[in-house]
């Protein structure tokens, strides 16, 4: 399984793109405070997403005929790591760009591609993912939300999704639902596209412990969907949904969520750290460089057509642990910071990131589920 980490090679020619993104972020960010950057990829700003779309930095790996840019996964990697390192508010388009667009490209009909991909690439259309339900968390295969095929080919959707990030601010959801009422577990599931403005869709924001309302409960009460709502093959929903996991689990968002806190900490410690401060900061840098190397390695595997799901799960487990460790390091150093504005800002940012940190190892598959996958990959089951 360790063979899934090939040489972490970033191809040449990416530095002009990186410089462009940095220049754009420098112009944009001068008035954007650290307390907002601290939200990382949970910060919502539709204007910002549209600006990225106008720059051509969304849908990078989508073909030009659908509004994309035919770029390599490495270009996408560079753009995204720069956005995340700066704490830019990317959540509006994040899921659509990362998951929904590649899914539609792979499994969607021509009409679905024509309809949704250009809007995603422009930063104007946002998606959420309907996975968890009140009775289905880690045990995702137990989902009960059902779409019943009607005689005219349309679908009748009933059920409830929960913890759906940004459902209240997205136009569409791609939901994993049961389309064969007699089925159990992984069989009989399909992916279905739900227009969230339709009658019968009720969205209730859920306030999280930090006071933010990122996630939602979405209830479907006899929602009527067209025959064209199905994505891909009926009954293949589980395989389709899990086939994108390597993309979801290995990206820079799995180790850069606490980057604003780390940056504040470095600034607040100042140019002449004592030994303890230097060791703590240096350790975070060592892991950051190494996690980035792992993420590049997985990106290279994906670019060459491999499906390194094991390695991707590895990156997510280590990366989210690293993000949470950043909070621990900040806590250990907080009383040693020289007094001043930077120390004050670091305290505020620490409070924000600390409140978000438990979710780092829950979202996108819990740590314990990931480790089960990793153990199975080792031949232990």
């Amino acid at each position, binding site marked *: *399984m*360790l063979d899934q*980490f090939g*040489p*972490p*090679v*970033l*191809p*040449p*020619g*990416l*530095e002009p793109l*990186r410089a462009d993104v940095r220049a754009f972020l420098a112009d944009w960010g001068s008035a954007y405070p650290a307390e907002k950057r601290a939200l990382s990829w949970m910060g919502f700003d539709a204007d910002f997403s549209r600006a990225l779309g106008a720059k051509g930095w969304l849908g990078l790996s989508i073909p030009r005929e659908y509004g994309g840019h035919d770029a390599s996964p490495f270009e996408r990697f560079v753009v995204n*790591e720069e956005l995340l*390192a*700066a704490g830019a508010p990317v959540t509006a388009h994040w899921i659509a760009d990362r998951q929904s667009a590649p899914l539609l490209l792979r499994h969607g009909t021509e009409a679905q591609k024509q309809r949704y991909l250009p809007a995603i690439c422009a930063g104007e259309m946002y998606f959420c993912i309907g996975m968890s339900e009140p009775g289905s968390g880690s045990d995702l295969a137990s989902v009960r939300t059902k779409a019943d095929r009607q005689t005219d080919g349309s679908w009748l959707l009933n059920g409830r999704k929960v913890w759906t990030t940004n459902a209240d601010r997205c136009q569409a959801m791609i939901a994993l639902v049961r389309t064969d009422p007699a089925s159990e577990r992984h069989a009989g599931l399909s992916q279905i596209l739900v227009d969230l403005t339709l009658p019968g869709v009720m969205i209730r924001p859920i306030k999280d412990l930090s006071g933010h309302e990122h996630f939602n409960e979405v209830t479907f009460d006899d929602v009527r969907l067209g025959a064209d709502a199905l994505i891909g093959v009926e009954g293949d929903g589980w395989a389709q949904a899990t086939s994108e996991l390597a993309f979801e689990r290995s990206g820079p968002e799995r180790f850069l969520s606490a*980057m604003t806190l*780390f*940056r*504040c900490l*470095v*600034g607040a*410690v*100042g*140019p*002449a*750290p004592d*030994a303890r*401060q*230097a*060791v*703590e*900061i*240096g*350790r975070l*840098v*060592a*892991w950051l*460089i*190494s*996690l*980035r*190397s*792992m993420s*590049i*390695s997985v990106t290279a595997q994906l670019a060459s057509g491999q499906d390194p799901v094991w*390695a991707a799960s*590895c990156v997510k*487990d*280590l990366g989210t642990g690293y993000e949470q460790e950043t909070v621990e390091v900040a806590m250990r150093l907080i009383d040693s910071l020289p007094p001043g504005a930077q120390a004050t800002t670091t305290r505020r940012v620490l409070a924000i990131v600390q409140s978000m940190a438990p979710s780092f190892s829950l979202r996108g598959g819990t740590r*314990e589920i990931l*480790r*089960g996958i*990793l*153990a199975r*990959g*080792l*031949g*232990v*089951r």
Partner: protein
Amino acid sequence: MRTLLQQSIERLLADAVTPDVLRAAEAGVWPADLWGKIEELGLPLAAVPEDLGGAGASWTDIFVVVRACGAAAAPAPLPEAILANSLLAAAGLEPPESGAIVFAAGTADAPLPEVPWGRHAKWLALHDTRTGRIALHALAEARIVLDNNVAGEPRDTITLAPGSLVADAATSAATDAVMLGGAMLRSAQMAGALGRLTEISAEYANERVQFGRPIGKFQAVQQQLAVLATQAAAAVAASEAAFLMATPNTEALTTASAKAVSGEAAGKGASIAHAVFGAIGFTHEHSLHFLTRRLWAWRAEYGSDAYWAEQLGRTIAARGDEGLWPLVTAAFAETKTDD
């Protein structure tokens, strides 16, 4: 070349490094047979340019050799010889054709502590900390005080004899080239050992039966094995990055990161492997300790994880918060293709 090197070294070590050979080496016996085969394949000269008699392999190619040495707990200074010869070659000196060669930093007139495999080596590449030059010394007449690391590998104190100098030359190598080079080697050896630990721990968890089923059926054990695997993966990726960026010389930021991460991973990984193997793994008779004691030893050599973390921390702090991210991306920027 990488695949070829990997196949030949792994085949060689699989045949030649048995528990008996390891025990004998620990008792002070030089594995002459193993070293003879290593020289037959030209491996000590792998990183030396072709015009100086080597194979001209890149450090990316060399990585798989050093990692394999770690995985097999190879009781011979092949990683050391590769680095020693490359230090000589980088200064334009021709490496010796045969005989084990190791490296040290210091001066020719003072004892050189903890020289790996010193008692068995014929040659020493000395990075002179006073003059900054690289010198090739013969060790035939050297005074040697024996010592071992926690894994029982020779780490001797060497005092060079008058007239031992064979050749020397100016070098462009960094002042801490030996420390960095040693750290790079040890990080890859730890990555190899951790990979092997992961394999044998998973195998054992599937075999060992308690409470009527293999212990690998228990989630507590599965979760531990997963952590071991992630630590091994981190060490592999971190050390591979260091080798990738070491063209032609070791690169400070990725090397420091590799040693810091691999060292921490070694501590966690060895601990988990011992938990999985239980009491049998704590015996001298079992071969687990050939890997775990080496992980402990290598973690400490050429700078512990805390040592390198502190260096990194000072570098980063001096750049400030605005310099942090650019430094991280520059540490691992566009890759050179040298195949």
